[in-house]
């Protein structure tokens, strides 16, 4: 959603005249970064000034003053204020001519009104678990068959989404029967589990993990948890005869786990290994996979991984 709004707002922004106060979130972020940079420059300059004063005092009077790194002379996060646009304009108007500044604003406003409305180039893309979650639990999504343009019924959606992962490389071969270790089922179980607990679940591609958990959403705060999905077969025999090559179903190497953990600790995220137990084929009937009722037989457990440094973590 954020991506779509960004484009719309940016294009709308270009059409709004420069007098308006509205800013896009990207502009707000850039302004915040520029302000922070300016604050650091001002603070460094103030510290240098205090140090230079201490030097002159020593040279002239001979007494030693330790230059302070904080205090009334030096701006801090609480006391520093950025130079606002109004004060800058006021400075300009004192030196330059106010009439030029005003007429420039008017011309820009008129020029931009004549531009054509911009096309919306963004689309919202949902993953299969996300789409099924919305259609099944909130009934707020209609999914159309791409060939017939007809809405699919919920049972059809359920079967189709599983079959997507089973599609044979040669189209003439029949689709194999539904499997318990279908990646769609595993990922949907994890997605549904965390969504129903109130987390916002997003893709974890940027941090080498499967999912990221946000408290409110990516726009508000950084994710606190990084999820790696580890499927486990209740019956090891099922894994041997499986036609699906599930990621992380076999223990991964220690070096790989260590790499993911380090990468995520670096960005202040806690790594969670989410184990999804795939029920044994022998226990369930074939019809089980025709509805989401099969999830009653899956279990989801979490293990948190944290690096322990005995020398530093004594409490």
């Amino acid at each position: 959603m954020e991506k779509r709004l960004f484009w719309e707002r940016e294009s709308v922004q270009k059409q709004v005249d420069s007098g308006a106060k509205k800013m896009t979130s990207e502009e707000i972020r850039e302004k915040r970064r520029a302000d922070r940079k300016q604050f650091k420059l001002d603070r460094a300059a103030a510290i240098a000034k205090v140090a230079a004063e201490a030097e002159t005092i020593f040279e002239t009077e001979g007494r030693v003053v330790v230059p302070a790194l904080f205090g009334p002379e030096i701006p801090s996060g609480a006391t520093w204020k950025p130079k606002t646009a109004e004060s800058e304009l006021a400075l300009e108007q004192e030196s330059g001519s106010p009439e030029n500044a005003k007429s420039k604003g008017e011309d820009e406003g008129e020029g931009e009104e004549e531009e054509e409305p911009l096309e919306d180039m963004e689309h919202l893309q949902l993953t299969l678990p996300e789409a099924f979650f919305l259609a099944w639990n909130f009934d707020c999504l209609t999914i159309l068959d791409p060939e017939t343009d007809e809405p699919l019924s919920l049972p059809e959606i359920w079967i189709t989404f599983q079959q997507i992962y089973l599609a044979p490389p040669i189209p003439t071969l029949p689709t194999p029967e539904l499997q318990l270790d279908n990646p769609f089922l595993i990922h949907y179980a994890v997605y549904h589990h965390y969504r129903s607990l109130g987390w916002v679940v997003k893709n974890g591609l940027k941090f080498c993990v499967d999912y990221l958990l946000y408290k409110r959403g990516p726009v508000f705060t950084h994710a606190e948890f990084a999820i790696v999905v580890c499927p486990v077969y209740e019956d090891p025999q099922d894994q041997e005869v499986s036609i699906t090559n599930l990621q992380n179903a076999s223990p991964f190497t220690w070096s790989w786990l260590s790499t993911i953990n380090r990468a995520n600790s670096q960005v202040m995220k806690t790594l969670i290994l989410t184990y999804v137990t795939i029920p044994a084929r022998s226990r369930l009937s074939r019809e089980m996979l025709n509805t989401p009722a099969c999830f009653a037989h899956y279990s989801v457990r979490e293990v948190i991984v944290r690096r322990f440094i005995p020398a530093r973590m004594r409490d």
Partner: protein
Amino acid sequence: MLEIHPSYPALASVAEKYPTHRGSLFQTYNDILLAQQWRDVQVIDLGKCKRGALQGRRPRTAADADLLLHIVPCSLAESISLAWYDAEYVFAALVNPPSIYLAVVSDDSSIVYYKLSSGIVKPSI
């Protein structure tokens, strides 16, 4: 659905030739052209490798604004081998550039870019 998107005409020939890689090419093209705002963006057909690639230049305000850069899109589901550096493969098809960008596209349209260079290269600061 893809066909009605305004970006489609530029990609049409390569996308139809290699339908497996159509999705990742489409996502990367839109990101590069519209979000990253690169200039002179063109779609290339890497015949032997059976996929499409993109070339372009960074925005005028960037550090290396005049360099022609190459991006090869791929999907998260694909397995890529280092054979890309072989004489017959991607690097060769792009006439041996010093480095290429690999764009990994996932299901929810997130894209992550990796820079692949020939040999050992110091990372830029």
